[in-house]
């Protein structure tokens, strides 16, 4: 039993002015740097504001930007790229590989060969590498003429001609997801590793005594234990990935053609290349709306989990 006294409703009411006072700075910053820009962006999305007319302002055009966006074939492609390739495939690869890596790092094999510490340190290297450094390095590695990956593939006789990983339609998404995964996988793996280490060894021993094999232990003991971490990481990764601009822009700039153009790069292209701030804001609003949907799922999950933990 906890000895902490639960405040009564009357007690909370008495503290209300103090609570409000303490929340004012946080609300101030939220309104200034989040609510106001969001509302401003929403307003801009109903105008034809141009990059070349920032001083003059835009004309109110109602929902024209949204109509154009919904009927644009290019935008359908952008949505598909963002949702399927970048988010679904990108996050799934990270979760599966992260899980595998965490299981490997937690295994007795690494312990046996005294590789546990070094492997964990090595795992941190990609995470500690700034995205821009990772992207530039990978671009060189994947370069068809000078890249080591092509040299290796040709040297091993796997391919005869170099592969233009970042410009051939068949390779560009796998290459892009490889770069994102390399840079962001460690966080996922370490999170799962931490969850794995909180698994009581007695549970695994009991399962083993009951005759559970490796697969059954994974299926019925380990995965259920990791489920909350997997759900949280999946949702968090979805947030980070869906919004991501840096990896796609610096690796392919959305090309070739529109093949890797995603919502975040579309916002940039429309605003700063086509100069259509109004349309770009509309894309941003759609993007934010989708994120809110994800956010509600996340919050619902967290709330449920906390409710279960408390009661």
């Amino acid at each position, binding site marked *: 039993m906890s000895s902490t006294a639960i405040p009564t409703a009357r007690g909370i009411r008495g503290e209300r002015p103090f609570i409000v006072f303490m929340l004012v700075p946080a609300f101030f910053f939220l309104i200034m740097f989040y609510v106001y820009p969001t509302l401003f962006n929403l307003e801009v999305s109903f105008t034809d504001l141009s*990059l*070349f*007319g*920032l*001083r*003059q302002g835009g004309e109110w055009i109602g929902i024209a930007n949204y109509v154009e966006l919904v009927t644009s074939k*290019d935008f359908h492609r952008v949505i598909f790229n963002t949702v399927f390739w970048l988010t679904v495939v990108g996050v799934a690869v990270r979760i599966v590989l992260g899980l595998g890596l965490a299981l490997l790092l937690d295994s007795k094999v690494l312990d046996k060969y005294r590789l546990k510490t070094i492997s964990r340190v090595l795992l941190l290297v990609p995470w500690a590498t700034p995205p821009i450094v990772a992207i530039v390095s990978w671009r060189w590695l994947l*370069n*068809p*003429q*000078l890249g080591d990956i092509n040299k290796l593939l040709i040297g091993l006789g796997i391919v005869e*001609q*170099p592969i*233009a*990983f*970042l*410009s*051939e*339609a068949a390779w560009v998404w796998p290459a892009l997801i490889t770069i994102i995964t390399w840079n962001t996988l460690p966080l996922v793996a370490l999170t799962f590793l931490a969850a794995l280490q909180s698994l009581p060894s007695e549970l695994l021993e009991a399962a083993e005594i009951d005759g559970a094999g490796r697969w059954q232990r994974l299926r019925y003991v380990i995965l259920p234990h990791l489920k909350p971490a997997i759900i949280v990481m999946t949702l968090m990764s979805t947030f980070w990935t869906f919004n991501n601009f840096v990896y796609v822009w610096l690796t*392919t*700039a*959305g*090309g*070739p*053609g*529109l*093949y890797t153009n995603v919502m975040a790069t579309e916002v940039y*292209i429309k605003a*700063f*290349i*086509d*100069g259509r701030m109004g349309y770009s804001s509309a894309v941003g609003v759609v993007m934010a709306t989708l994120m809110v949907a994800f956010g509600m799922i996340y919050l619902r999950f967290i709330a449920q989990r906390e409710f279960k933990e408390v009661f």
Partner: protein
Amino acid sequence: MTTRKTRLLGSTMLGAVALGTLWAGSAWADAEITFRYAFDNVDQIRAGLDKFEEDNPGITVNLERIAFKDARDQFLRETATGGGPDVVFMAYVWIKDLGSADACLPLNDLIEEHGISEAGFDDFIANDLVLGADNETIYGIPFATDTWGMVYNTAIMEEAGIEKIPETWDELLEASRKAKEIGKIGFGFAAGTSSANTIWFLANFNWWSDGGSLVVDDGAGGYKLGISAEQVASVIDYYKTYLDEELTTPGSLGLDNWADPAVMEPMAAGDQFAALVPVFTATDIFDAWRGRNPGQELPFVTAMTPHGSGSPTTHLGGQSLCINANTEYPEESWKLMHWLNSWEFWDNYNTIYYPSQKSLLEQRPFPEELSGMQQQFTQGARSWGPYARGPAAIAMMWNQTSREFGAAFIGEKSSQQAAEDLLEYVQGLL
């Protein structure tokens, strides 16, 4: 007592006036202006600015660098919030839009008061591109000029049995096939998609030389499309052939800069037959080759671009200078602009590029090894004209062209579909 007080008050006021004058004087004397530049000969430019500071005590010039492709958008964002550098370096074709955005200071009064260069405003090439939408207000001064031309490797020509410099686009394609037969890259170019991609230029040079143009005057003060979807599709197919038959730079679709090392390095190493590049990039290729092969004869020749049913055509390109509309120092900025357009500056400091003034260009002819470029410049370079004057921002057409070409190159769309989509988009802008 009253007299003493009056004296004290009087001397205090005098002191205040003197201090004020001194402060104002020091403020004038300490004008600090910023010049934002986007090319790589920064040391030369800095040396030129040092000389300007020496000749104009009290004016300090900070030199800022920016990637050329980011220069316009960054400046627009800054000026919209009252900031930005005092003098900027922009593409010719951006000035009209910057003027419309009130980002550049109108220069008519300054030109009227002080004049610009010895030969006046008419001495500047492509000066129509620095006018505002009213075709009267001058928002910039052309600074450097260039055009594009072909560079061919004569050693590869000889080895591959290419008997003459290709004169048509089809001959260039055939010659590239021959170059591939001896294990060389044919016509190397960057076909990637980005905000500063190359395919835009290649596309325009091709259809211009065949009588087409994305935007033309409609004869009634407006603008219309000057090319059919079939013509655009044939140009897409033309460049796609290089990609499909692997006659161009490997990974070309991932490259967006004409001077990408993947395109330039094989030229400098003697592994590539042809490139279509600006004048200064041709010079870079020659310098790189000479650095590796000292004392040897240059195995390159420059020539006009190939053509279709018309004549070889490239664009009269270049960069202009504009003064930030927010500047606190318009007079000092104007002084700097004057200096940057003087023959003394071009002759002693900015020696890599070519000035926009006809009178200065006469004093700096292209060297013999760039004779093909010279010919292109004098006989085959056109202004962007209706592209720049019309209502569609060139950047938008530029970007969409690369998107549609890219979509067709990777098979996401048919050439015909990509061409139709491009023209529909441009039509919508007009």
